[in-house]
């Protein structure tokens, strides 16, 4: 039985960088030979979610949403547009524990294993730590440093904040960073007052966003007060702290491994030597 990986992402009518993480991670996984077939599909770009499954040749499909949290897109839009007979309750999730369900889509005659989003997978915690390492250039970053995990936050979807809190708690429990905080754009505690939340000299700020765009490149830097000349410096000195702002975590190469972990959890037959496709993945 041949297997395909279908990475589904939001995409954008305005921001060409929106689809870059999906494309880049798809290329990484394809090059590693982890799947017979690797495809992408988008809500706002092409192929559309509606047309995606018919672009797949393989006998079965593992669908991994490149989204940061469970919510409207993973529970409603993606299954509806893929024509899966799915109800959010099928995942039996507490807001961060969706793993997978297997469904026969109305569109094509092959099983679809619909996975939870990458953002809530445990392996995402590793990606955050990796991101902190890459942005600081310090493979041992942690002691003497604080880590802020930043989410959008929205009153419409409590799971949005849950995913951020979940990973912040997991990083904290490892004891690697002196301080770990979950901060948000649109709800308290807010990223605006980032230095109020830390005593450490160095503060690493990792936004739990898939793509770099307006939020990660303009909003959050402006909210924190590190925006300058249309960009931001890394690090930026702010209120006696060095702010190491990482940009969207979705662009981190290691995220390709989280996509594979999601598919493997759903039963994808990925050769053991292929489950870690990113060099240096631990």
């Amino acid at each position, binding site marked *: 039985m041949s297997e395909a990986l279908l990475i589904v992402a939001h995409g*954008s*009518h*305005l*921001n*060409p960088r929106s*689809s870059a993480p999906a*494309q880049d991670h798809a*290329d990484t996984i*394809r090059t590693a030979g982890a799947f017979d077939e690797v495809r*992408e599909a988008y*809500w*706002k*770009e*092409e*192929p*559309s979610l*509606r*047309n*995606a499954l*018919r*672009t797949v*040749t393989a006998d079965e499909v593992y669908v991994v949403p490149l989204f940061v949290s469970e919510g*409207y897109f993973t529970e*409603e*839009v993606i299954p*509806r547009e893929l024509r899966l007979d799915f109800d959010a309750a099928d995942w039996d999730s507490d807001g961060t524990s969706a793993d997978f369900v297997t469904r026969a889509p109305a569109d094509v005659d092959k099983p679809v294993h619909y996975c939870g989003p990458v953002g809530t997978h445990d392996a995402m915690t590793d990606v955050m730590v990796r991101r902190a390492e890459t942005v600081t250039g310090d493979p041992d970053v942690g002691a003497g440093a604080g880590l802020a995990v930043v989410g959008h936050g929205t009153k419409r979807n409590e799971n949005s904040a849950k995913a951020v809190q979940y990973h912040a708690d997991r990083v904290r429990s490892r004891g690697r960073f002196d301080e770990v905080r979950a901060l948000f754009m649109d709800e308290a505690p807010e990223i605006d007052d980032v230095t109020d939340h830390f005593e450490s000299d160095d503060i690493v700020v990792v936004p739990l966003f898939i793509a770099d765009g307006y939020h990660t490149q303009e909003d959050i830097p402006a909210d924190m007060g590190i925006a300058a000349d249309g960009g931001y410096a890394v690090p930026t000195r702010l209120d006696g702290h060095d702010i190491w702002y990482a940009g969207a975590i979705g662009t981190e190469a290691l995220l390709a491994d989280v996509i594979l972990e999601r598919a493997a959890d759903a039963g994808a037959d990925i050769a053991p030597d292929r489950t870690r496709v990113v060099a240096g993945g631990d």
Partner: protein
Amino acid sequence: MSAPTPVDALREAAADGVDFDGLRATRDGDDFRLAVPDASYAGLSPAEFADAVREHRAYAENWLFWHGHAPQADDAWAFLRWVERAADLSVPERYERLGDGGMTREWGQVAVTARLTDDGRRRYDLRHADEADADPDDLSTYADPHETRRLRKFDDNGDYRPLSTAPTLRHGWALADLDPGAAVRAVEGFYPATIANWHREREGTLDVTHWHETVSRQTGIYGVVQTWDRGEGHEHVNWVAEACCDDSQCCKRREWEYDDETPLDIPGGDGVFPCREPCSLVVATARTWTRIEAEQSHTYSFDLTPSEKAQIETIINAVADGRVDEIRDGDTSDGANRFRARFLRAKLFDDDGNLCGVPTEGEST
């Protein structure tokens, strides 16, 4: 293990019978038969069969390509057959053309050329249809077919193309020497899902989702578009199709209508591949129209000279036709010339930007 020769492969397959593109081969014990449109042989020994196959080598190579080398997925297979007009031309006709410069067909703005190499393999070259005759040294050549997903993202001006099938594909690239599977991937990178839907249409199984069904399905910020259908006709959807789906705006051929009983009054276009439902750009744009089309009209009075009225129409046409960048600064005969537009603004707008000083209804002045 080396790939089987056409003779070996055909000898093997003859036991089950072969009937493809004019070639027929059968085997009964050690008794082989072979036929092509202008010759047939019976009672052949294996050695005689091999000689006969070599005599009609193009037929045998053609059969082996389509069953051993080409992608076997139905849609990809049909697409590559379409490229070399397999339904219309005999094997010798195709082989002559494939070996002499190749055969080219246009898929949207992409020219796909199939050709035979010296060792008898089919290889595929892709270029912008405008650049079929360009010097290869003037084009950037890409080897990875998946790179077309990135080539499609920006137009010649570097502007983002959210609609892959907009007729604004950038120039200056080439993909050369692709194997058949890579050629299909490259085309799909430029125009996602077009091969699958084109094939479904040819098979009579294209599942068209019409406008009303599409907007009825929308939720979230797009849910409002449902309210634009008021059971008062489909003229608004005619305007959408005329604005967004014209051949000048999209290479797909619109197959969706208002609903399955109510065709639109606008032609669907001449594109090779079909559009099976309103795309995300149409839905997103319709959200804007739903909001502004809910407004009531008002009667405004403006005093314009005939030339001023005509100029306003010229400006709207220039924007709608994407002509603005072509208008030269010195061409003041064109109503959409920048200086002409600035003069009109200087003369007719008041300090609040109101045309002829007439306030817009509902806006604070």
